[in-house]
Structure formats: structure tokens, C-alpha cells
């Protein structure tokens, strides 16, 4: 009863706190938050040399971003984030003078940016453009931009942006037009008709059609890869035979075949011989044909005849560049598994080596192989030419290497595609670990005394050292907002040699300092320092590919053992699939150091079956390790590490898994049994059919395993308790579909299913509403947002489940004996804005009230108290409701500017928010990830467990001391007075 009272008071206090405004002071900005901005994987790279603003690198990326990167320091000069998804996908990017022209979504958006300021110069659109058909751009001279879309060529003036002419292409339903080239005063548009012919259209610069003809090519496929060489020759590869086919655009009647002699295309390594156009329009006509893994053939075309110039085995990337009159070939390859990248320069035509371009450069192993090179030469003081080389790595990184052998700057663009995040506690310091060690052993008293004495002595010693250190160097502030990510990277590079301070990576007083382990799309894993955002370690797993689930890529990250079990080392495991074989692959590593775990093979554990489901057991084995249980397509269960099979067998009666089949829309639940061979096998127990022909499953959301719920119910005004329905096995399934009768009318349903028994706890349907839907599932409530088609607005709905005023089982929840169907309270609100990600805060004990975090499309991250999204909000505020502290219902949710937790540090294309508890009950750690990263701490109920910064220690202690002094004096005086009175 006492604790209940306490919680009532506590809740009241929290409610009162919630009324306060939550924001930062100006000088607090950047003290415990940081932001990092990225551009994503570069697809198009263009150099702008010299000029007032120095060398700029214009990139167009897979994440629909156009940006300029400063060549000196790698910082983003400007960045334009285009539309999300296919409608913003960049098909082509070209630079002419001070303009950057991009085409997106097959010609739906043509944009011209100022290369220096990044401002939008003009924008246009081609009617009838198909996003599925990539468009291309060619620029003629300094003013004409030609864009080839699905069925037409449109020319624009680059200065004014006005449409000069538009020419419809014939037969565009059958012929796929995808190549465009200028040759002097003629523009060629080339289209491919599958297994039939190639259409050649030549157009004069004023938009009049010159000729239109077709050349028979039975071997050609519509997905064939071709290139136009110097505006004069079309070069294609026959997919089946590997023969090069060349055609003169001006007067060619037939394709001239070129058999790549002595070169065998290794179809096991490359699915298709890739063509890579080298050099610029002034260089000799050379093309590189990728014939194998890191194997190229260089082909030159002269007078309509092609010849093989060179066969280049073992070359990761290559480039042709001009040096004075000479044309040079630059090739790069990593020397076997070292941090050294060997760059060779040779004359393109004669093949003689150029020594001043041959270097061994430092290129850390965690970048993988370089995929593309962009070299430039600069004249040095001593007259020789210095090479600077921009490399796009396998891990999406951009690195500028210089001839001195060191990287000038590095951009880790893999962080723009984070798939999984875990925040791992840092280990306690060694002394603390020794202290804790004391309680685990059974030594005799003398030994224990000695141990205690020595640890406390060493504690004192380290304290003295720290004090000395602190006095000598004033504390450095890692002001996150002011240091950009590239500076951090160079800083970190210099740190590499010194090694990090040993005490830096130990747990702090409130456990606010953590390691953020992030797994990214290209298979690179980072350990980020939560205080600064600097990566402490990074590992690249070249073979680690992603699973594809519903609409996004997935890599699973498990924390198998935390740092709490000294001397056992913590273990994290990432589960993905092999890029080549497609079979699952697992890597285990130490989350603090990034080193491969001793118990698991360092080259990864390959599993030779198809995976259906993988879960981490909540139980631990005798080494405090949580085993991972993997279910294969034949319903067999596998346990990792294998030694824990007996543990899983022991718990098999209480182990239940479910699988969702997206294709059939059927959710199946399995129990775990032992078959005749004593192997674990899945026993199908229940099914739920979501009716695939009407709707498709788009989301399956479970609760977080480590969530604590402090109060089992809410106290009503009449002092009765409304108990929460806290089913840890509850899963929320979201399905979206379209009404059969009306095509434009979409609907979606939410199903709450007990994951053990398959009982449908609740299901509801929203008509005339559609996604994209974000769904959040925590405690006893579910919150989701959707687009209301009828009212044309964003709405947010909340479902809260209650058992009622009686709790059926107070000690533990069991799905086999469930409470009666819960009361589902529900309410909806109008949400002012578009939500790209949704999350809720999580704290150590779950006492702190919850805050809901919304990543908005406009760049803000909004934090709203759960109090505002509460289905118990009354329409008319009665006395009882007022007593409970409920807020009266308003249909529209507020969006106060002071609740934007990232203040002016806008972040874009956020697709996930990860929250983790800190050691302080009041504090929750938040990482928002997407194109940008933003990390901060939030205090949903304010800092009730820490004294404020401006707490007046001096005043309080002086009052205290004063009181003590006064009481001592008065006591003396009183004694004296009593004595005097006794004498009278």
C-alpha cells in the first residue's frame, strides 16, 4: 500500500512536471547532442576544378541527394535532398560551367542547380515521363541541355531554363530509348528493341529530325548494357557470347563483332560483362569491359574498328586521365589484405609505366576494394605533378588520397544507410570490476581484507592521477554541433597512433556514455562514441548482404552478452546473408573494440540453409550468453552457439515462434518440439489468414524485450485501479489494401495477436485511409499514423488496452490462461505534419512518463508527452477527470516549436529512431538515423533525479552550517542561563 501511495504521488508529480516547457538554453546546444550530415552512396561524381571556391566535387547519390563536397576538407558545401523514393531517384547528373543539371524519375523532374551556392536555378518536367524508365542528359556546348525520356527528347537552354524544342520519338512502346550523345552538330538518340533491332534517331540542334533508321540486332536484349563512345560509335556486349558489337552511329549498316581473344568471361563472378566508359570527350576512344571479378579488358575503337589494347587481371578500379598531351591509364588494387592501395600509372596507348603516378597509398582495409577512381593532377612547386585520387569504396565511403600516401579526408557514407542500432554499455573500470569480483569468491578473511585494501588504495591512486590530470589540462569540450564529421574523422585518424585514453572508455557515473553499434547497408559495422559521434572502431564485412523484408533491407543485430558479466567479454552478433550465395552468414564481435569474438570464426559463420526466423533467447547459459535460435525453411531449429542446444531443449516447452509469409498473408505460430532424432523442430500450432487477395501485410511490430513497466495500472479518481493489459507476447500486424469496388479507396487494418496462442486480441479497420504508416507498440498501447484520404490530412490513432478494475493474475502474465478480452480504448487526432519515423522513450525502470518522438519530413524531431496521446482524454472536462490530471480532448495535436528536440539542427529522411535507457531513471538516449544522424538525451519528466546545474550549493551549505552554529551557540547560552537561574 505504501508503494502504491508513493506511486500516486509520483505520478502526480510527473503530471505536474509535464506541464513545464521542455527546451534548451542557447548555450546548451551541442553539449550533449550531435548531428552528422551525409550524402549517401555516390552514383555520379563530377569535379569542378579551381575557381574562387576551390575544388568542388559534385555528387549525385543513391539516397536522392545532390551535393557539393569541398575538395580540401571533405565537408558538405551544399546539399539538396530530392524527393524520397522512386520519384526523386537521380537518373543522370551532368555539370556544365557553373550549373549542375539532374534528371529524376525518368524525366519527371529536371533541375538545374547553381554549382557554387547550390540554389535551384530552374526546374522543369517532361509530360508522360515514366519513373521506371531512366532518363539521360547530354549537354552541348555551354547552353543546350538535351534530356531523353521515355518517348521524347526535350532541349532546354541552360541559362534561362526555357524549353527550346521537344521531339516525340516513334515507336516508343516497343523501343526502349536509353542512349543519347552529341556528335558535333548532331544529336543521336539510340533505342533498343528486344531481340530485334536498334533504332537510331539523329536530330539537328534546332530540333528537326534528320534521319531515323534501324539496324538489325537479333542478339540484343532490352536490359543490355551499351555505351556511346565519343558520340560516334555504339558499343554493346552480346550477353550470351560475350562478343563486343560495334556500330558507327553516322553511317554504320551492321554491327561489327569483336571477339575478346584469349579472354574468358567468368560468368560465375560477373553476371554480365559490364562496360565502363573511360576518359572524357577529348581522350582516345577507350572502353573497359569488366570480364570477371577485378578483371578488365581495355578496348580501343579507331575508325570503326575495335581492338583489345590490354588485358588487366587483378585491377579493382581504373581511370583514364590527361597529363599535358599524354593520356594515362590509372589502375588501383589492394595488395592482399593490407592497408595499402597500389596505384599504377601507365601510358594509355603505349603501355609504358609512368613512375610519378605510381604510388602505394594508405587505404584502410575497412573500405573494402575501391570501386571507382577519380584522379586529378596538380602542379607541385618542384615542377612535378602531384596526384590526388578520389576513391569510391565498396563500403560507400569517399576518400581523397594524395600522393603523399595519406588520406586528406574520409567520408563514411555508409552511415547514411543504417539498418540496425544497439547501444551497448561501456564496461566498468578495472578497479570497479575488481571490487565486484570480491563478492563472487569465497576467500578467507585475510585474503579478502588484502584485496579490499589494495583495490581501495589503487582507487585512491587513480583519483589522485585524475585530479592531477584535470588540473593540468582544462577539460576539453567536444562541442558536437560545431565540429563537423570530417574534422572528427581526421581527429580520429591522428588519435589512431596515440591510442585512446584507457579510462575514457569506461562507464561514467550515470551510464550516459555508451557505444552505439550500428550496422549499415553495405555491411560495414561501426562503434560510435555516444558523446561525440566519432567512430571508435569500424569493421567491413565484404560478404555481408542484407535480407529484404516487406519494403526495406534488414540486417539483424543481437547483443548476446552485455558488458555486465566481467570477466566474460561482451558479444554482439550480426546476421545477414552472403552477397554471393544468398545463404545466411553470421559475424560475432566485441562491441567495445570491434574485434572478432574468440568463440566464433572471424571469417563469419556460414549457415547452409534458408532462414525463416531468428530470435535471441531471453534465457542465458552458464557463460551469461543469450543463445540465438534460428528456424530454417524446413522448420528445424538451430542454436548458436551450438553448445547451448541443451539449454534450448530445456526451455523448448515455453519457446514459441511465429512466421509471417508476405506472399500468402498467412501468419503461422509454432511451438518447439523434439523429433525422433532429438532435434528441435517446429510444430505448427496456429494460423491467422490476413486475406492476401484483399490486403498485404506491411508491418509486424513486437514489443521491446527490455522494456520495464513500473505501474501495473492507473489509479482512477475514486481510488480504484484500472489495470493495464500487459501481454509481453502481443504482436501488432498491419495490413494495407484497396477496396475491391472503388479503386481509389484504400484501407488498412491493425491486428493485435497473441504471439503464443494466436488469439486475436483486437482488430480494427480504417477505411479511406492509407500509408505510409508508422506503428509503435509499447506497454499497453499502440500508436500509428496514417493518411486520411477523405479529409486529406495526417491522423494519429492510439489504442490502449486495459484488463479492467480487476487483475486476473498479478504475479505473471501467461498467454495460456489469458485474462478476459481487454477493454480497448481508442482515440484519434489530427497530426499537423508528415511523420517518417515514430518511437517512444525508454528508461531504466519505466517510472518516468513516456514521451513520443516523431521524425517529421520537414527535418524536425518532435517530442510530445504521452499525456497528449491518451484515449482517456475526455471531451468535456469533468471534476473527476481534472483530479486525475487528464487533458481535455482537442482534435488537433499541438506542434510547439520548443518541443522540437533537435532545435535548428534539421535532419532529413529519418527512417528510424532508436531509444535506450541511461543509468539515470529520468534520461533516455535517442539516436535518429536516416540520411543524417542526430543523437541527444531526452528527459520526458524533466531531471527529477539530478540536482540542477544552477543549484546553489554555497547558499544551502552556508545556511546549513549557520543553523548548526546557531543551534550550538543557543544551546550554550541556554545552559548558561539555566545555571544562572539556578544560582538565583
Amino acid at each position, binding site marked *: 500500500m505504501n508503494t502504491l501511495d508513493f506511486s500516486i504521488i509520483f505520478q502526480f508529480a510527473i503530471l505536474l512536471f509535464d506541464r513545464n516547457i521542455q527546451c534548451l538554453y542557447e548555450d546548451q546546444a551541442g553539449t550533449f547532442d550531435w548531428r552528422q550530415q551525409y550524402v549517401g552512396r555516390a552514383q555520379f561524381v563530377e569535379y569542378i576544378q579551381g575557381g574562387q571556391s576551390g575544388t568542388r566535387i559534385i555528387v549525385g547519390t543513391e539516397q536522392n541527394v545532390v551535393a557539393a563536397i569541398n575538395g580540401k576538407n571533405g565537408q558538405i558545401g551544399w546539399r539538396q535532398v530530392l524527393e524520397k523514393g522512386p520519384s526523386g531517384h537521380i537518373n543522370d547528373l551532368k555539370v556544365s560551367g557553373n550549373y549542375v543539371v539532374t534528371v529524376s524519375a525518368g524525366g519527371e523532374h529536371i533541375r538545374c542547380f547553381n554549382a557554387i551556392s547550390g540554389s535551384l536555378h530552374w526546374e522543369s518536367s517532361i509530360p508522360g515521363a515514366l519513373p521506371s524508365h531512366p532518363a539521360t542528359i547530354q549537354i552541348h556546348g555551354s547552353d543546350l541541355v538535351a534530356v531523353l525520356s521515355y518517348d521524347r527528347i526535350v532541349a532546354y537552354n541552360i541559362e534561362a531554363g526555357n524549353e527550346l524544342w521537344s521531339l516525340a520519338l516513334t515507336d516508343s512502346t516497343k523501343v526502349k530509348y536509353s542512349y543519347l550523345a552529341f556528335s558535333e552538330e548532331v544529336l543521336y538518340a539510340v533505342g533498343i528493341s528486344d531481340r530485334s533491332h536498334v533504332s537510331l534517331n539523329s536530330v539537328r540542334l534546332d530540333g528537326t529530325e534528320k534521319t531515323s533508321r534501324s539496324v538489325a540486332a537479333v542478339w540484343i536484349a532490352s536490359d543490355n548494357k551499351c555505351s556511346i563512345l565519343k558520340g560516334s560509335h555504339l558499343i554493346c556486349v552480346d550477353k550470351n557470347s560475350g562478343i563486343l558489337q560495334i556500330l558507327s552511329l553516322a553511317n554504320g549498316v551492321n554491327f561489327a563483332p569483336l571477339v575478346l581473344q584469349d579472354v574468358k568471361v567468368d560468368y560465375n563472378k560477373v553476371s554480365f560483362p559490364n562496360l565502363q566508359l573511360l576518359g572524357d570527350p577529348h581522350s582516345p576512344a577507350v572502353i573497359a569491359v569488366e570480364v570477371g571479378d577485378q578483371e578488365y579488358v581495355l578496348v580501343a575503337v579507331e575508325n570503326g574498328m575495335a581492338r583489345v589494347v590490354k588485358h588487366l587481371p587483378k585491377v579493382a578500379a581504373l581511370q583514364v586521365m590527361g597529363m599535358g598531351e599524354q593520356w594515362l591509364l590509372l589502375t588501383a588494387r589492394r595488395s592482399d589484405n593490407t592497408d595499402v592501395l597500389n596505384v599504377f600509372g601507365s601510358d594509355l596507348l603505349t603501355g609504358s609505366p609512368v613512375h610519378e603516378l605510381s604510388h602505394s597509398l594508405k587505404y584502410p582495409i575497412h573500405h573494402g576494394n575501391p570501386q571507382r577512381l577519380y584522379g586529378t593532377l596538380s602542379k607541385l612547386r618542384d615542377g612535378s605533378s602531384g596526384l590526388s585520387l578520389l576513391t569510391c569504396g565498396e563500403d560507400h565511403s569517399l576518400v581523397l588520397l594524395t600522393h603523399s600516401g595519406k588520406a586528406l579526408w574520409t567520408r563514411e557514407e555508409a552511415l547514411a544507410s543504417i539498418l540496425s542500432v544497439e547501444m551497448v554499455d561501456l564496461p566498468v573500470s578495472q578497479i570497479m570490476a575488481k571490487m565486484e569480483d570480491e563478492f563472487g569468491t569465497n576467500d578467507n578473511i585475510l585474503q579478502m581484507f588484502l584485496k579490499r585494501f589494495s583495490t581501495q588504495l589503487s582507487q585512491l591512486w587513480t583519483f589522485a592521477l585524475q585530479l592531477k590530470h584535470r588540473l593540468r589540462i582544462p577539460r576539453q569540450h567536444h562541442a558536437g554541433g560545431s565540429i563537423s564529421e570530417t574534422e572528427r574523422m581526421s581527429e580520429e585518424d591522428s588519435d589512431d597512433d596515440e591510442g585512446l585514453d584507457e579510462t575514457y572508455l569506461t562507464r561514467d557515473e550515470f551510464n550516459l556514455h555508451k557505444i552505439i553499434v550500428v550496422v549499415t547497408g553495405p555491411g560495414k559495422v561501426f562503434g560510435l562514441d555516444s558523446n561525440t559521434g566519432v567512430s571508435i572502431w569500424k569493421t567491413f564485412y565484404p560478404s555481408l548482404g542484407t535480407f529484404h523484408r516487406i519494403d526495406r533491407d534488414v540486417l539483424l543485430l543481437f547483443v548476446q552478452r552485455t558488458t555486465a558479466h566481467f570477466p566474460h567479454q561482451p558479444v554482439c552478433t550480426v546476421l545477414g546473408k552472403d552477397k554471393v550465395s544468398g545463404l545466411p552468414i553470421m559475424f560475432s564481435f566485441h562491441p567495445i573494440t570491434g574485434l572478432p569474438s574468440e568463440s566464433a570464426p572471424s571469417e563469419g559463420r556460414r549457415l547452409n540453409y534458408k532462414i525463416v526466423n531468428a530470435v535471441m533467447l531471453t534465457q542465458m547459459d552458464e557463460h551469461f550468453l543469450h543463445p540465438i535460435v534460428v528456424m530454417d525453411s524446413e522448420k528445424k531449429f538451430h542454436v548458436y552457439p551450438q553448445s547451448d542446444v541443451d539449454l534450448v531443449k530445456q526451455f523448448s516447452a515455453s519457446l514459441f515462434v511465429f512466421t509471417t509469409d508476405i506472399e500468402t498473408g498467412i501468419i503461422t505460430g509454432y511451438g518447439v518440439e523434439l523429433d525422433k532424432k532429438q532435434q528441435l523442430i517446429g510444430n505448427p500450432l496456429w494460423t491467422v*489468414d490476413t486475406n492476401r487477395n484483399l490486403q498485404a501485410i506491411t508491418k509486424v511490430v513486437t514489443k521491446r524485450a527490455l522494456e520495464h513497466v513500473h505501474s501495473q495500472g492507473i489509479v482512477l479518481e475514486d481510488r480504484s485501479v484500472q489495470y493495464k493489459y500487459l501481454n509481453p507476447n502481443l504482436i501488432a500486424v498491419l495490413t494495407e489494401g484497396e477496396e475491391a469496388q472503388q479503386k481509389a479507396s484504400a*484501407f488498412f487494418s491493425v491486428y493485435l495477436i497473441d504471439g503464443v496462442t494466436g488469439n486475436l486480441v483486437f482488430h480494427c479497420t480504417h477505411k479511406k485511409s492509407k500509408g505510409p504508416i508508422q506503428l509503435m507498440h509499447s506497454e499497453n498501447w499502440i500508436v500509428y499514423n496514417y493518411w486520411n484520404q477523405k479529409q486529406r490530412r495526417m491522423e494519429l490513432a492510439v489504442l490502449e488496452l486495459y484488463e479492467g478494475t480487476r487483475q486476473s493474475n498479478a504475479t505473471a502474465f501467461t498467454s495460456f490462461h489469458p485474462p478476459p478480452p481487454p477493454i480497448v480504448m481508442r482515440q*484519434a487526432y489530427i497530426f499537423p505534419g508528415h511523420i517518417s519515423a515514430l518511437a517512444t522513450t525508454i528508461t531504466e525502470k519505466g517510472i518516468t512518463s513516456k514521451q513520443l518522438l516523431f521524425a517529421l519530413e520537414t527535418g524536425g524531431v518532435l517530442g510530445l508527452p504521452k499525456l497528449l496521446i491518451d484515449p482517456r482524454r475526455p471531451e468535456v472536462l469533468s471534476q473527476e477527470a481534472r483530479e486525475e490530471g487528464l487533458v481535455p480532448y482537442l482534435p488537433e495535436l499541438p506542434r510547439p516549436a520548443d518541443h522540437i528536440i533537435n532545435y535548428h539542427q534539421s535532419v532529413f529522411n529519418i527512417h528510424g529512431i532508436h531509444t535506450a535507457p541511461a543509468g539515470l531513471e529520468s534520461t533516455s538516449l535517442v539516436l535518429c538515423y536516416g540520411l543524417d544522424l542526430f543523437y541527444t538525451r531526452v528527459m520526458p519528466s524533466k531531471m527529477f533525479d539530478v540536482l540542477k546545474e544552477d543549484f546553489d550549493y554555497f547558499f544551502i551549505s552556508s545556511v546549513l552550517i549557520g543553523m548548526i552554529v546557531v543551534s550550538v551557540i543557543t544551546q550554550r547560552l541556554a545552559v548558561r542561563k539555566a545555571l544562572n537561574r539556578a544560582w538565583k
Partner: protein
Amino acid sequence: MAEHLAAKCYNNLLLTLLFIISSLMTLALSEDEYDGLYTLNVEHSFSSGEEAVFSKRGVITLHSLKSGTAEFFTDFELSDTQRQQLKELAANDGVYRLRVGRVSTDENSVNYLYSFVKACALVESRLSDVITVHVDHSGSLIGISVTTTAPWCSGRLPAVGDLQDFNTTVEVQQSVTGPIPETQAYIQRLEMEKQQAKGQQVDNRSFFAKYWMYLVPLVIFIMIVQNADQGAQGGGGGRG
């Protein structure tokens, strides 16, 4: 002649009306019939695994989705071997599985939905169970759930003889409509508040009409004071 024509017109009108009513009724009936025809086969199994054998237990007929009424028909009786099987299952903490399939003309395309319950719970509740049929908003079957009346497996199994026939209740649950923002109610409330506020403000009476109750005592008070002053002065004069 004209009268006759009018009568004919009237007759025609009546006929059309009748036709409309009857057609409406048949429509309503057919809808009812459709609801009634929604029949599900219920089968059960006492063994586990993929190759478990399911045997027929009964038929669920859904009468109306809106009112959620359904009935369970069965002519099935538990055989002695099945009774024994169930008992063994309960003793081994096994599961009793149930599946329903929609009765359709095409036998091959029957899509079964499965559910289960701990055998011990079924035995301890003496074969009383509740089957809940979940139906989505368009009326198609999503899933079933089975619960027993006994809340716990206490471990005290009743004798085999006590297990007579199944006592099955069927419930239907259709997807409810999700919440929507209650703008209408909010606007109504606002308007009501506005009107209330208006009702208080509108008071077009004159100044005197409104405040006579304050003015009259004031006037009387002033008059009394004046009278008293005069009286006092008079008294004073008397003394002097």
C-alpha cells in the same frame, strides 16, 4: 373514360410500388440467407506435427456478422479411444488442435485456419470450450481462437468417465472501425460553449432596469441620512 384512365394509372403505380417493396424484401432476405450460408467445418486432432490426422467435430453456422450470432451444430460423440488419447495428451502437457475450413464447392481450395489449446485445460474444464471466430470488415475469415472455461491447469484431471460431450459456445467478432478524430463533437461543444457565453452576455435591459436593486437602497440610504442629519441638527438646537 377519364376516370377509368386515372384508375388505371393508380393501379399501375400500386403495382410498381408493390414490385419495389417485394424486390427490396427479397434483397434483404437474400442477404440474410447469405449470412446464414456462411458455414465452417470444425475438425480436431489429438496428435501433433505436420502429418497429424484431423477428424470432424462439427459445423459452425454464422447467422449474422453484425449481431455476431453463430451456432455450433454437431452429431459427434467422443469415442473411448479418443477419450483415452485426450487424457494422455493432458497428462503429457500436450496440445489439442482445432482447425476450421470454409465449406466451399471446390474441395481442393479449402484453406484451413488452425488454433490450439492446452489439452489439460480442456480436460479440466470438462470439455467446455469457447470458439471465437474472427471476421474482417469485408466478412472474410481471419482466424479462430479457442479458450476453455477452466482458467488454470491445476493438475487434477477428472476421471475419463467424466468426459462426456463437448460443450461448445461460438462467438463471432468482426473488425471494428478504427477511431477517427472527433471533430464534429468538438465543434458542437465549442458552439455550445459559445452560445452559453452569448446567453450570459446578451442583456439589453436599461441601466435602471438592471441595477435598480442597488440603486433603490442607495437612494433610500441617502434619504435616511439626510433626514437623520436634519433631525440631529434640530436636536442640537434644542439643547443649545
